[in-house]
């Protein structure tokens, strides 16, 4: 078969052409292209890794934020509770103080009233005494208008003194 016997000339030229195209492309095309492709792949891998790392960092930061927030919230609640206790304490103290003052005032008032009452009573007694003396003086003046009655009376008085 003529078809199956290779021609030397074509074999020769193919060898030359293939080898030259191989060496030229290796130097000027495949080298740069393959380098660029692998560089891009490592670049993409790096970017993905960086993104992943950032994502993790973000998550961590968020976590920390949340922790901080929770802590702040707790602190706020504690402060509120303390404030309420303080408030109650102050109110209670105020109430107690007020009560003490009013009690004292009441006691004072009662004492004063007692004193006034005593004073008034004394005065009333004095007046009544005076009135009784005046009445007795008038009765006596009328009774002792005569000399006999004056002696009788003096007698009784003397008797009283004797008895004492």
């Amino acid at each position, binding site marked *: *078969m*003529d*078809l*199956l*016997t*290779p*021609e*030397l*000339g*074509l*074999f*020769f*030229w*193919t*060898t030359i*052409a*293939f*080898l*030259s*195209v*191989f060496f*030229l*492309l*290796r130097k*000027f*095309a*495949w*080298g*740069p*292209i*393959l380098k*660029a*492709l692998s*560089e*891009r792949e490592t*670049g993409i891998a790096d970017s993905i890794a960086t993104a992943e790392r950032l994502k993790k960092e973000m998550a961590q930061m968020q976590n920390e934020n949340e922790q901080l927030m929770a802590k702040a919230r707790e602190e706020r609640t504690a402060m509120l509770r303390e404030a309420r206790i303080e408030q109650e304490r102050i109110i209670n103290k105020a109430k107690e103080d007020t009560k003490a003052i009013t009690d004292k005032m009441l006691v004072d008032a009662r004492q004063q009233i007692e004193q006034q009452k005593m004073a008034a009573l004394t005065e009333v007694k004095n007046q009544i005494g005076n009135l009784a003396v005046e009445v007795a003086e008038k009765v006596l003046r009328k009774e002792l208008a005569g000399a006999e009655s004056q002696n009788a009376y003096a007698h009784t008085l003397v008797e009283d003194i004797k008895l004492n």
Partner: protein
Amino acid sequence: MVVKRLFSLLVLILTLSVSAISVYAQHGPEGHETTTGHGHEATEEKKGFNASEVIFGHIRDSHYWHLFDINGHPVSLSLPVIIYHPEKGLEMFSASKFHHGHESYNGYYIDHNVKMKEKIASEDGAAIKDFSITKNVVSMFLSVIILLVLMINVAKKYKKNGVMKAPSGFQNALEPVITFIRDEVAKPNLGSKYMAYMPLLLTVFFFIWVNNLLGLLPGGANFTGNIAVTACLAAISFIVMMAKSNKHYWSHLLNPPGVPLGIKFLLVPIEIMSMFIKPMALCIRLFANMLAGHIVILSVISMIFIFAALNQVAGIVFVPFSLAFSVFMFSLELLVAAIQAFIFANLTAVFIGQAIEEPHHGEHAH
């Protein structure tokens, strides 16, 4: 893939049988002319359409680039003929000196007894070597220029745009192919050292693919369907395989472990034979696939003229069928062009991978 191989095998068998018949058919009237050598054979061809003549005219290598015929006169580019004569030395002249094979020049003539080739012979019977820039060589140079221009431009684009920019234009078309060769061909077969073989695999793949496609263009040369070309490519991959083979490969080949001595005497010759059969299979696979594709397309188109020669109406009726089938075959050939390039690159990677494989435990013998 299996279906396609079976199909191309079938096509090859069909076409080879057809060509055998046509060779046999032509041998009869041609036989007595051998003494006169070159010259006049066109006289009896006039009476009908000779399909095998047309087909082999298209698929064989030529010293002209035949474009078309006007009133039976071929219009073609005459290509340079370079001949090495053992006594006269190197000679170079235009193929137009042969006047389409009708005349001899400087003691050389086109031997018409060799049907499937356009062989130049010397009148003094010397064993000359033909280094002519034939149609196939011109087509190959064209493919080399296309490859260099396209690939170097793409490489420049990578340099210009920087690495992290999205590819654009032809770069975008090329990149998936390159990454495909890297990820599907080189990495699985060659292991960690795949990067060293990427330039070879890429060159093999694109060289074959571009030449396959150029061969499909109307008027294109049947470059990859020529056994000299595929033999050259297979030889290159064989040389790379041998040059890179390691001790592990040779020890496995010459002294298979875990095999009884008696079997070794049987196995080692087979292994050595398989070493040479691998590149031969590479060579013949590509050659046969591309040749068969060309022959089928040409045969289908030739059928129009065969039927027309029998009966004009039959010829006209057959036109749509023939065109539909040739369009189908052409689409198939476009696919085959890429697939064969891929298979060649892939098998090259597989063979090199076997030769450079490092020893590791638990390995089965192969």
